[in-house]
């Protein structure tokens, strides 16, 4: 059923498309994270902006991805932005929710002790709150990265210059050639899993205290998982 000869012939293409796929995903996640972080800090400082931010990013999240990519074309043409902007927008809801939840999970007594001992606001954010928010933030990044890696395939609808591994899926579909569809889909899934595992490893590195035997009081640091925020379906 699978045309192994074709597979072997196209391994070079696979490498190139994988790199492109990762490039889109990483760029979208990085930009999305920067925007989400700023929005989160704003929400934490002024609580009343939180609900509108979540409402707005929530609405963005419900737009069918194909429609959003199509809607971008008249504005940004067939440039990289046409692919990146929707990908970025789709990360915001998950990231803002988890970043804010992460900072909210910092125990009140820890914050009070930090203030009482003479931390400046900035030092407290960097040295106390950020590390303690990290488990939830990383959980958000994991969900967002899985969903973004899935969505990059959809950008293949914009043409051959897009899509990463999604290129093979679209082309395989057009040619009614299942081997090529799987040639795009399976590596895309492997990529998502690999990135997820990499993030787990990074978090383990960054938060050694969570590996210490943890007492019941700390269970509020349980990550918000994919069950809480479903990844964006294609």
């Amino acid at each position, binding site marked *: 059923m699978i045309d192994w000869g074709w597979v072997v012939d196209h391994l070079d293409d696979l490498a190139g498309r994988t790199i492109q796929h990762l490039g889109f995903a990483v760029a979208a996640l990085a930009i999305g994270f920067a925007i989400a972080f700023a929005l989160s800090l704003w929400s934490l400082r002024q609580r009343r902006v939180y609900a509108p931010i979540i409402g707005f990013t929530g609405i963005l999240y419900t737009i069918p991805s194909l429609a959003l990519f199509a809607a971008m074309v008249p504005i940004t043409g067939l440039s990289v932005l046409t692919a990146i902007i929707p990908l970025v927008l789709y990360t915001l809801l998950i990231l803002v929710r988890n970043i804010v939840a992460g900072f909210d999970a910092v125990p009140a007594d820890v914050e009070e002790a*930090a203030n*009482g*001992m*003479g931390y400046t606001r900035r030092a407290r954010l960097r040295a106390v709150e950020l590390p303690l928010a990290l488990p939830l933030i990383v959980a958000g990044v994991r969900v967002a990265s899985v969903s973004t890696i899935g969505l990059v395939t959809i950008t293949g609808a914009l043409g051959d210059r897009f899509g990463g591994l999604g290129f093979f899926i679209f082309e395989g579909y057009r040619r009614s050639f299942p081997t090529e569809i799987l040639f795009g889909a399976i590596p895309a899934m492997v990529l998502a899993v690999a990135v997820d595992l990499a993030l787990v490893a990074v978090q383990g590195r960054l938060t050694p*205290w969570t590996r210490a035997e943890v007492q019941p009081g700390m269970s509020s640091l349980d990550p918000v998982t994919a069950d809480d925020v479903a990844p964006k379906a294609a």
Partner: protein
Amino acid sequence: MPDPTPTPAANASSSTPHAATVEFDHVTKTYDPRAAKAGAPGAVNDLSLSIPAGRICVLVGPSGCGKTTSLKMVNRLIEPTKGRILLDGVDVATRDVTELRRGIGYVIQQTGLFPHQTIEDNVATVPRLLGWPKARQKERAQELLGVVGLDPSRYARRYPAQLSGGERQRVGVARALAADPPVMLMDEPFGAVDPIVRERLQNEFLRLQEQLAKTILFVTHDIDEAIKLGDVVAVFRDGGIVEQFAPPAEILAAPASEFVARFVGADRGLKRLSLTRVNDVELGHAPTARAGDGAADARERTRRNELPYLLLLDAEDRPIGWVDEARLPAEGQLGDRLVSATSPLLDRRTTLKDALSMLLDADVQIGVVVDRRGAYRGIITVEQIAGFTRETAREAQVRADAATG
């Protein structure tokens, strides 16, 4: 008798360069300005207190009476609505807030330890903020862990989640002491541990303070803790109003108001007994004789004494037991077998409360007070204890009356 009036620490050791005085000067805090305009009382109202340097001042009162609010105004976690707080005569409002806080030790009930830092890093927090060299931070953290009774080689590299509640409280105290601040604020620091651990932490805390002689504001709602730890105690009632500000003995002997009397409890007489030690009381004397002494002379002396017993001592003057006057032979020598009863031996440092409780349980209700080597020094009876409390209550009342004019 311990001097009940607070004077600047005479025992301030060389380890602390200075302890600061803390003064509340007509301090008011209203959280809700609109309610205040409508005439509702604030959390703290017109609080004036003057805490001498090097002493422990306990703020005690029922829940919600404004103790925590008062405490947090010292390190400006809360800003007063009116009034001033002076540290060594300097208004805290004029000081840079982070620099002020780094110079004040702060301990809270929930400990507020940083879960993501090792115990060592937690303890070194303020030195780190002050930019001490790394090596000195580490050295100081290790030293302080030792001071609070945690072996650095076992605890330094652990995280707070790996410690028991009592151990975490100790780390909290060590962290507050790290930069050797002259003033410490402690908000129910031993509130979250069981009574046995609390007792131990309190004792260690008192021993520590004997060396450090810092000025400590200590919040609790436990009157027993207040009496045990305070050099002076401020009894608060709702609205941050101080009903009485006096040494513990005076609060127990002469409560300034109905509220204070009720707050310290119906057993305040017993509590006072726990503040006084046997060697603070003038001891009585029983007729004594050594084993081997002539019986005739001993019998004669016992007959002349109002006590119907003779206390038999060994060659080193250590009490053997009581000999009933009726059983004293007319001649011959005194020996162990004449002893018909014993009574509690009291160390000079036994509290009157413990002494009383032992006396009530004894065959002969006469406590025999011995010195460190166990040699007889005198006796104490239930009547003497009662007389002592009556006398000191009268003195305290006179002093309290004089103070209120």
